[in-house]
């Protein structure tokens, strides 16, 4: 029983560790779609930011410079997506996909030409990364049964960016529902001509959403390469941008449900890590390939079976044209 409890604790701990970049990217997608711009380039933005952050951290020796570089890179990509889909009313899926493909190819090429490490960036040492933080009170809590163990093992001991990511969930909800910006953002994603006739710039509002999405993806990417990992590796985002999109839809474009969806996906990801090579009752050892499918199977089931009737923002994916 004790061993089982400890297994669960470890699973929860790695879920929290994995959920950081996921929820950041999902919130980025949420802000973009709430403004009416479909953004499937979350993946590319994260990957670009991961590369820029790792490269900058390796060159300057500062994780914070890395964070800055990651965010700026991601914002630049977000503005590119905005330029195509907002200013030129281009096809948003194509633009997003193009960004994903370009970044997937460009990042390793640049890494190779700058560092000559086969498309990777140099391994970052502790001082160049966001390392785990021990929360206050751990010593006292470690003596408390269950709750104390959960606090010490699950809540404490994550990197700064993970805490930032989780704190951004209530903050995003507050911005969306309690501020003028949030009201306008939600309005422009539902009916841009209502916003236009109210005298607010649809274009500028959507660009603001792009910038917010850029910042969030920037932090997500940075956390991949300088917090969870120690350097940039080719394709290190591994579909997390798309998983984040799925979580956003599962969470019905609302911050808190989106966090829960992210936790579900992160938990299944953690579970597949734990289950590899483990002998299970009845079925025995399942081959690794099937185990690794777990998070994606959960995603498909979640989207296909449990989402029910979903309603995306009404103007999502539609460029704004003032009608005659």
């Amino acid at each position: 029983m004790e061993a089982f409890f400890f297994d669960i604790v470890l699973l929860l701990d790695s879920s929290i560790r994995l959920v950081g970049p996921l929820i950041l990217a999902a919130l980025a997608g949420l802000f973009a779609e709430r403004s009416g711009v479909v953004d499937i380039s979350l993946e590319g933005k994260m990957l670009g930011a991961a590369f820029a952050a790792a490269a900058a951290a390796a060159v300057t020796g500062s994780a914070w410079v890395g964070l800055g570089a990651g965010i700026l890179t991601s914002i630049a990509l977000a503005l590119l997506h905005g330029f195509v889909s907002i200013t030129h009313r281009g096809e948003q899926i194509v633009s997003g996909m193009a960004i994903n493909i370009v970044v997937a190819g460009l990042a390793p090429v640049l890494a190779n030409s700058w560092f000559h490490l086969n498309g990777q960036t140099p391994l970052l040492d502790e001082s160049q990364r966001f390392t785990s933080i021990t929360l206050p009170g751990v010593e006292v809590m470690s003596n408390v049964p269950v709750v104390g163990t959960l606090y010490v093992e699950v809540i404490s001991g994550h990197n700064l960016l993970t805490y930032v990511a989780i704190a951004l969930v209530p903050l995003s909800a507050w911005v969306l529902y309690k501020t003028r910006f949030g009201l306008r953002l939600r309005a422009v994603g539902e009916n841009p001509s209502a916003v236009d006739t109210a005298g607010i710039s649809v274009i500028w509002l959507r660009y603001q959403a792009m910038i917010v999405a850029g910042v969030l993806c920037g932090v997500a990417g940075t956390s991949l390469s300088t917090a969870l990992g120690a350097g940039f590796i080719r394709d290190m985002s591994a579909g997390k941008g798309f998983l984040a999109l799925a979580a956003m839809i599962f969470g019905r474009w609302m911050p808190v449900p989106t966090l829960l969806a992210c936790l579900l996906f992160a938990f299944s990801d953690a579970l597949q890590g734990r289950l590899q090579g483990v002998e299970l009752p009845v079925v025995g050892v399942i081959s690794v390939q099937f185990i690794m499918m777990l998070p994606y199977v959960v995603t498909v089931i979640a989207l296909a079976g449990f989402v029910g009737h979903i309603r995306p923002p009404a103007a999502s994916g539609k460029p704004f044209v003032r009608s005659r």
Partner: protein
Amino acid sequence: MNVALEARHLTKRFGDVVANSGVNMRVERGTVHGLVGENGAGKSTLMNMVFGLYQPDDGEILLDGKTVHFSGPQEAIDMGLGMVHQHFKLVEPFTVLENVILGIEDAPLLGDAVSKARTKLEALEKSYGLEVNMDTPVEDLSVGERQRVEILKALYREAQILILDEPTGVLTPQETESLFEIIAKLRDEGKTILLITHKLGEIMAITNNVSVMRGGKVVAERVTSETSADELAELMVGRAVTKEVGKTVVKASEAILVVDGLCANDDTMHKALKGVSFAVRSGEILGIAGVSGNGQSELVEVITGMRAATAGEVFFDGVLTASSDDFLKADALRALGLGHVAEDRLKFGMVSDMSAAENSILGHQKDARYHKHGLLNPRLITEHCDDLMQKYDVRPPLSQLPVGGFSGGNQQKLAIGREVENNPKLLIVGQPTRGVDIGAIAFIHDRLVALRNAGCAILLVSSELEELMALADRLIVMCDGVVSGEGLPAKLSEKDIGLMMAGHKTPEHSGNVGGRVS
């Protein structure tokens, strides 16, 4: 005269099209000013310039005698203009209150702004009789209520001049009446109202002055009390308009279409039809009245083989064509003699990018008369189309022009021509004159009556009461997926029908004229 708003020589071009050319108009303060004209006469363009949505190419706009330049709606709003657009500019999931404050929230945080707005809005609702629950999401409101929200939006922004663009198009007669009460109240409070409409009855009922537009120009200004609906109609069209339809007495015969207890769902799987029964006989026009969205579209789709029924039956010419088990598709029904002029002609009836000739045979493309050596023959198709265009007065008579390039009225004439020429036993017509100019309306009405006189049954779905009253031999009214009333047009007043459209039972005195054929 105290002029609140004046347009001088306003001109606006879109590419080669001159939408407004040297438009002059003066609107007196504290009056209701009507602006009439056919579709495409330039009314909306003019109003969009006044409201800052378009910038004029030439000419000027004066408010209180001072020239103004608006680079966007915000500046127009700041100068005391408010506009209620034909298609409401509301955010559906938002509450009424949120919709009203959108764009003028005062502060970056909503908390205080909301409570302040609530007080101000309450006062406005009371003083103008614009009652609507502030915390209801707009998507749960009726069309009439949504319109009130739009008016409240404008008043909340302290509009002195209120522009109403085709405000009654989607309202029941009762809702229209209460809108007019509100307009009168606003005018008495000193507001200036500009009413854009193509319904002359409304102009005569509520306006003080009226400007008539035709072909991008204001062709006449009248004091309402010194003109008549007939004169205005003539000014709008540019020639005399006859309204009489020459119906002959046709001996009532057997029912060609019987609909019995029909139920069906809409696209979102909600019940749209909840047990509809009626019959149509050869040689009669059965009109279906009702506010759009009360099941009429779904009813037509089931009868024409485009939607499955969940219960009930449809018999056409003695054949069971639709039940909950199965239904005949459109092509099989067409072969049985069912013609259909769809209410949304560019969605169901025609392909906008294809030529008039190609459209003129759509649905009948397998017919041998368009083929030679087993292939479609362009010459035969063109000949057929030319013939159709001449008979149905389609202008311009260019068979190779894409259908999207024709005006709504000419598209409709082509669509009706195509169906009528195939000698249907029953013609189902949805909104035959929506987006159609007055001249074409008369032509279309004549054709429908001629078809009826020739013994064809016609099922006419329309949201224009006037049209139904003029054409229908018998009328049923739909509300919320059921037949809420029926009667003979001659024995029903608009008020009766309005009540039925709102879901009240058939008024006693109209009697039951037999929805079912015994």
